[in-house]
């Protein structure tokens, strides 16, 4: 454990720290502090209206200016001794408006500052997730479900955002209102103050209990929604298959099940929320009712004035609203906790180690596998005791049945996965000792199912070499036999690649990916069954081009067609993760085995073609 950790540190391995809420606010805490200060000011000023109103009512009720606020009292008396009561009222009204407006300014500050804080935090969170996705170990993606992962990055982040931008502020508001208000109320009447808050703890406890109980229901509902979305997405992407088998009815009933499940879970959730709001209304109104009735009796007994009762009623209704809301806020907080946990599950997954690049200038492309052993799942070895030396500049072809481990070998070489035992080296250096990024930048690979970015074709090609100029771009495209196809598009090289390259045919996509790899002009070029969708004529054209490069860079070519592999310097036959045959075309075609069978099939075809052609020629002459 300690050893592996120290190795990680040595390797400069970086883990983003798990994002707990507190750590997320780093660097934004000053903004939040400012927001809370503004909120204190705002809530103090917002209590001006009920307080001033309460005094005014007492002045009116008892016809005695002495009951009013001393400041206003004196002011009114000085300005107009005759109509001082009327003036007192006018002054109260103006003061209410002015103080509320002033409070508004602080409210604005609160909103603005907390917006800056929360949005800044979310920006950081989004970026660290995005970066993390790029550095995650490839093994993570074998098990990962794209839809779910995207949901974690989008809607879960959104839930956290809502929590940070609205909920934190809301909770703060409730607390601050409570804290600022209590002294005022207790100052006016201790017994009524106690009575005013006596039900609030129960309201809060009820809210918290309720939302902890329904938390699982929120989760179930979210999952139901996710499943429904997944079915929808699959249907839309596979619509051709649906139609080809006329399975509309089947799909409709499948979707109906998911659609209904989501509806019913969601409905159940809303119904429970209805119970919550009804109960919390019962609590809050009872709280107000207590104040009203007890206040009424105390007025009768002369303990308090009408104005005091007014102030209390207004204040309690101001405070009780955020406390009732606390239920919803706590829901969101609960959701935010779940979301944060889901985000953390992603962020907590180990990244690939990142080592500094080695001080090597030129790479020759000599590759050595030595006793390599690998399994995706323990007990199911994919590569077994594999050793092979590939000379710099050599062209190696790999053939073998599906699942024989061809692609896995490539992944190991790229350090997308790490072998469980054995060594792989490039130019004599163990690849585990050099930076992955550096290693990969020496290798250009065209994947089986190539991925093109949602950008223009030119931009996709430039991925291979960002500083390439147009002539180089065209050159590479020509070499990949795709220049003509690109030029015939309405916008040529500036055409956008649609959703997952939908606007390009499979063969065109492969060829664009090939051009991208060729543009990189790497020490090692790898083609992983990347001409499969290209027609034979074009394939020959490309192979001819590649042939001209032979010797310049080490080339590894996985292919199924004999025509693609037979001219390689050596051909490797892989079966069940083992090298079963190795040699050039001439020697392998004489050795009994998979390759020979491949040759026989092709030879039979060849013979057939020759025969056909001869027959035709003979027939033509005859």
């Amino acid at each position: 454990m300690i050893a592996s950790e120290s190795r990680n540190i040595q390797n400069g391995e970086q883990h983003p720290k798990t994002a707990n809420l507190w750590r997320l606010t780093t660097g934004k805490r000053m903004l939040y502090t400012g927001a809370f200060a503004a909120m204190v000011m705002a809530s103090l000023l917002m209590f001006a209206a009920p307080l001033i109103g309460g005094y005014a009512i007492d002045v009116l009720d008892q016809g005695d200016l002495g009951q009013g606020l001393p400041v206003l009292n004196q002011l009114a008396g000085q300005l107009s001794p005759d109509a001082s009561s009327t003036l007192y009222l006018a002054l109260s009204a103006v003061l209410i408006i002015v103080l509320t407006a002033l409070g508004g300014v602080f409210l604005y500050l609160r909103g603005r500052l907390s917006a800056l804080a929360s949005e800044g935090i979310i920006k950081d969170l989004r970026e660290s997730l995005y970066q993390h996705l790029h550095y995650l170990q490839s093994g993570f993606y074998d098990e990962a479900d794209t839809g779910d992962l995207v949901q974690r990055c989008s809607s879960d982040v959104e839930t956290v955002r809502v929590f940070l931008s609205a909920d934190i502020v809301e909770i703060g508001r409730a607390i601050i209102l409570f804290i600022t208000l209590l002294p005022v109320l207790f100052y006016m009447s201790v017994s009524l103050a106690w009575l005013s808050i006596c039900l609030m703890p129960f309201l809060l406890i009820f809210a918290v209990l309720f939302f902890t109980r329904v938390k699982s229901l929120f989760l179930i509902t979210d999952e139901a929604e996710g499943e429904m979305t997944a079915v929808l997405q699959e249907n839309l992407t596979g619509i051709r298959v649906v139609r080809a088998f006329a399975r509309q009815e089947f799909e409709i009933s499948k979707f109906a099940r998911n659609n209904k499940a989501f509806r019913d879970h969601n409905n159940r959730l809303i119904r429970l929320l209805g119970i919550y709001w009804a109960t919390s209304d019962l609590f809050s109104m009872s709280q107000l009712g207590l104040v009203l009735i007890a206040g009424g009796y105390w007025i009768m007994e002369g303990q308090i004035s009408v104005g005091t009762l007014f102030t209390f009623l207004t204040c309690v209704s101001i405070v009780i609203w955020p406390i009732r809301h606390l239920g919803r806020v706590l829901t969101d907080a609960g959701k935010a906790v779940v979301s944060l946990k889901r985000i953390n599950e992603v962020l907590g997954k180990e990244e690939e180690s990142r080592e500094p690049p080695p001080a090597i200038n030129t790479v020759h492309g000599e590759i050595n596998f030595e006793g390599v052993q690998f399994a995706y799942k323990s007990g199911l070895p994919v590569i077994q005791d594999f050793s092979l030396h590939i000379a710099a500049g050599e062209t190696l072809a790999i053939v073998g049945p599906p699942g024989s481990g061809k692609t896995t070998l490539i992944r190991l070489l790229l350090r997308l996965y790490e072998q469980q035992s054995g060594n792989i080296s490039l130019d004599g250096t163990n690849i585990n000792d050099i930076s992955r990024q550096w290693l990969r930048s020496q290798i250009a690979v065209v994947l089986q199912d190539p991925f093109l970015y949602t950008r223009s074709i030119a931009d996709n090609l430039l991925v291979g070499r960002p500083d390439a100029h147009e002539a180089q771009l065209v050159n590479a495209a020509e070499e990949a036999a795709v220049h003509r196809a690109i030029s015939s598009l309405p916008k040529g090289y500036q055409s956008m690649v649609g959703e997952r390259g939908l606007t390009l045919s499979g063969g065109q996509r492969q060829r664009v990916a090939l051009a991208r790899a060729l543009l990189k002009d790497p020490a090692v070029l790898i083609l992983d069954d990347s001409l499969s969708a290209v027609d034979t004529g074009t394939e020959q054209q490309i192979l001819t081009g590649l042939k001209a490069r032979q010797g310049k860079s080490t080339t590894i070519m996985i292919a199924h067609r004999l025509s693609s592999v037979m001219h390689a310097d050596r051909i490797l036959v892989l079966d069940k993760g083992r090298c079963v045959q190795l040699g050039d075309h001439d020697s392998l075609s004489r050795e009994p085995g998979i390759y020979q069978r491949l040759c026989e099939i092709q030879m039979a075809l060849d013979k057939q073609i020759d025969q056909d052609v001869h027959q035709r020629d003979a027939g033509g002459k005859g």
Partner: protein
Amino acid sequence: MSDYDDDNFDDGFNEEELARKFQIGLWKKLFTYTLPYKKQVGLLAFFAVLTATADVIYPLITKGVIDTVAEHGADARLVPYVYYYLGCTLLLSLSVGGFIWMGGIIRTHVSHDIRRDGFENLQRLSFSYYDHRPVGWLMARMTSDCERLSNILAWGVLDLVWGITLMAGIAVVMMIMNLKLALLILAIIPLLAWVSVSFKKRILISAREVRRTNSRITGAYNEAIMGVQTSKTYVREAENLSDFQKLTSGMNAASVTNLTQSAIYVPIVLTLASLATGLALAVGGFDMLGGAMTAGMLIAFLAYTRHFFEPIEELGHWFAEMQMAQASAERIISLIETEPEIADSEHVLQCLWRAEQPEPDTQATSRLRAKNRALDGGLDSISRIELQDVGFSYGDDNPVLQNINLSVNSGETIAIVGPTGGGKSTLVNVICRFYEPVAGRVLIDGVDYRDRSLHWLQSNLGMVLQNAHVFSGSIMENIRYGNLSATDADVITAAKTAGAHDLIVTLPDAYQTEVGEGGSKLSAGQKQLVSFARAILADPAILIMDEATSSIDTETERRIQFGLQKLLQGRISFVIAHRLSTIRNATRILVVVDGRIVEQGTHAQLLELGKHYYQLYTQQSISQSAREISTLRPGLA
């Protein structure tokens, strides 16, 4: 490098447009979705009115308590007010629970129903509809738009009824208590309404910008995940991040703007409301001095001024939201109402309707059965397809297919060859009636296929597509997709015929292996074998193979060949493939170039011809390609 905000990113679809005019008709259509829930809508309105009533009554109770105390002093009896208060509170909490319950039903059921209709129509719509709309776009309509509209239909309606009742109730009570003061306070409403609507609109516009950016961010995440191998192998981590940072910065700016607008709006509303409070206090207090008002009345007035503006805010929000959501409504209604370009004709629909009658004329059904008729009254089996002068284009002037003439009998295998983009796939799609010809006609056993049922034709199809698509679920389920009533044994037999069985049993859970989303856990070749087995299980009258063997190694392909030959017997098969060895045995070969059949005939005939096909064919020969390469590199030979 171009940014994500290239217009093309949305494929020409502007995400959300601010609707110019309020379209009543559109909302009427949407409101029809609430019709099945009339009872709930009625109850929702009822509970909303009750809630508003309770809201109006509370200040009156307060007034009663204070005035009674003022009037009777120590003799005042407050007990009745306790009962009023309790009653009112029970009423309020029951009606609150009630409207949330009802609103929840409407909200979830309406969105369910809209989504159901949308999905069902998506299953009917022709491929041409999909050609112009990216999957992501359709997804957004079916998810967020649905939720948004059903929110308006449930909670918007609730707030409308509640708000109007509450405002009307308060206005009436205030006017009864003190007309002059009531009118003064009501005078502030227009100002507040104007502020509310204009601000809410602004807020919604910036919220839209936030959403738009957000969907781009989601797209970027999606791309990051789908393209992770490519990004890793091209060491794009840093560049991608810096591109992404442009997006998040935009998002940050938009969100801060949005929140700041709200931060300005709320204080303005509060200040306006305090204007009313000040007015009530000054004017009402003056009246109280004159004895025209009691302390209780003044307190009730002050309470009403606070309650009065809540509904305006809510209504302002929904009003603005409805304006903004109009674009959503438009899109979703059009999705539901778009008629598929390819659908059963009136005549076919009538036949189908007759066939589906619950109490059919038993004689007629038995006659249908005896004559081996399909539900639409035509022949059930397919023994001959004929294309007469078929032409096709994708809605523009560029013809994709021209003057296609072809007739195929059962048992025949037609190979289609030719360069990429020549129209091979389109030809097959026209034969399957995924597209209908714009010129000429397609006859099935002498009947124009537009006079037959679409479902009948397409359930007679089996297809193996270029990019084999499998659904998440087990391999067993995926193969069974070809014939839903097949037993496990049938599935295994089909897999054996496809040459997939040996491979499947080596997988961890054999036939129960989960293939993952979009088959992500299978290799391309494995996916193709599965889709092969699926087509074989379907046992179709018409079999289509589109480059089906491209990712299968020669060894596996050979395994398939034998089974395939058996499969082709007694069917009409169309095979698009680049490997001519597969096609050699075809009954006939079509060479399609630039949307025309330029050569047609048997292998021998076309070789004899010595043109396109001859060239294509001889390209297959290794010795031929070896010759080509060796001429380039003399040393090698």
